[in-house]
């Protein structure tokens, strides 16, 4: 099995990143932003309510139907 093609792809990206000037600053900014978004904000403040509160779609559907029909849980 030849690894020539994957190696060329790897080298393409590696050389591309190495030769960046402004790009390095941008990637750093992107990394910080993604960390803040996914690790801090998503984890602390944005749970998927229906996924965390209920076990399956049947329960989720029943809950939403209760909400739509003004029936308290």
């Amino acid at each position, binding site marked *: 099995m030849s690894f020539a093609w994957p190696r060329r792809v790897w080298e393409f990206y590696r050389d591309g990143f190495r030769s960046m000037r*402004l790009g390095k600053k941008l990637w750093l*900014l992107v990394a910080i932003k993604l960390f803040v978004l996914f690790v801090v904000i998503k984890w602390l403040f944005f749970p998927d309510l229906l996924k965390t509160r209920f076990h399956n779609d049947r329960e989720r559907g029943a809950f939403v139907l209760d909400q739509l029909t003004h029936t308290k849980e």
Partner: protein
Amino acid sequence: MHIDPSLVEWSRAQFALTALYHWLFVPLTLGLTFIVAIMETIYVKTGNEWWKKTTRFWMGLLAINFAIGLATGIIMEFEFGTNWSNYSWIVGDIFGAPLAIEGLMAFFMESTFFAVMFFGWDKVSKRMHLLSTWLVAIGSNLSALWILVANGWMQHPVGMRFNPDTARNEMVDFWAVLFNPNAYSKFLHTISGGYVLASLFVISISAWYLLRKRNIQFAKRSIMVAASFGLIVSLFNVTTGDDSARHVAQDQPMKLAAMEGLYQGKSGAEIVTFGILNPSKKVGDKQEPFLVKVAIPDGLSLLSYHRVDAYVPGIRELVYGSKEHGIPSVAEKMKRGKEAVAALTAYKAAKKAGDTAKMEAAKKRFEANSTYLGYGYLKTPLQAVPSVPITFYAFHTMVGLGTWFVLLFIVILYFTMTNTLERHRKWLWAALFSLPLGYVAQESGWITAEVGRQPWAIQDMLPVGMATSNIVTSPVMITFWLFAILFTALLIAEVKIMTTQIKLGPVELKEDSHV
């Protein structure tokens, strides 16, 4: 379901904040990818290295905008799951397919062709590189298509059926969702608006170089491309705007009435080109709706229905109904909506009791009234009226600025073609200051579209208050301010990095370096 009204308002404010900030980044990417693709095509056709340098400079600014804007839209998906879980569940089946396609497309296009576009200048052939640049342009715009298909569906839900067993809208016709007239007119209007903004971006920065008497040839070349592109797409933007407004007239007449401050419906309705609304005007009273206005007779009828004598309903008729014109009142719709809600309740009870005959009867009753389901949750008919001042002023700001941009592109293109642009410094200043106006127009368009369709999260089907999750308000308030700080920091970073690059200018870019 009782939900604290302040929770609904904070959830709305948070979503509006994230959407408005997200939209500061997206339209420039949509348009600038095409402008750099055109510039690179000229480079490949002519072999002139100046065009390569010009392309790479604008590509560098595109990279900055792309990197800063990247993933700002994902926050809205977080909000769907937490703040809007009812809505998210109800639309899940419809949004799943378009958003999954969008995600896959964005991932593959961005990780492959974007990389070739930025890293591949000396690694792949000229034609392969050009192909990658065009594919990035087409791919990012197709990404927008799927998002706008989802948004178009909320404005005009089609191709689905509400299933009371799952409490979801289930897709029954994918093609009806994809070719929803509301969605494609919105898509074309939105992307062409992005092209206009990108043209303004290139012209504005180039005008700055000309005012500073530097990079003259580069600036003129860039303006020639951007003004030609800008003129074509701004005219296209006008036609798509007209198409979009006609769909609004058919599918969301209340939004159209709010856009025009039309309280009293009439045949041969005029279109207001400029106006100041009377702030004390109420629906159904005898006060004049405008303090001052300039209007074109029959204009609204003509633009909305392509007939000068067409009847355009006003807010009053849409709220209180009009037998003469066959318009049901909101009170009647509320009655039907409450029937739909009662039928859902009966269906649920019959299902629990295992009574299939009653389930079937309740389902039939629900289906007969389901078109008005959302009205069943309104407390008063006037809740069906969106904010007229916000919708009216946002719409007129967008249209006024759009008209100005057409004029600007014509004048700038003429001066460029006659090689007299440098002498017309006032026009260069006008071009420079038109860039922030481009962003104002973009945001005004979305404010018109989204505020104008209130109170609906899904038109006629689900009001915003029912779409909200019943959660504690304080985390929503905290994250609102967190996002405000985060996005403002990102915006400052974008402006700072961009202005540094612009000040360096294209001459400073080394041929052998990547962005």
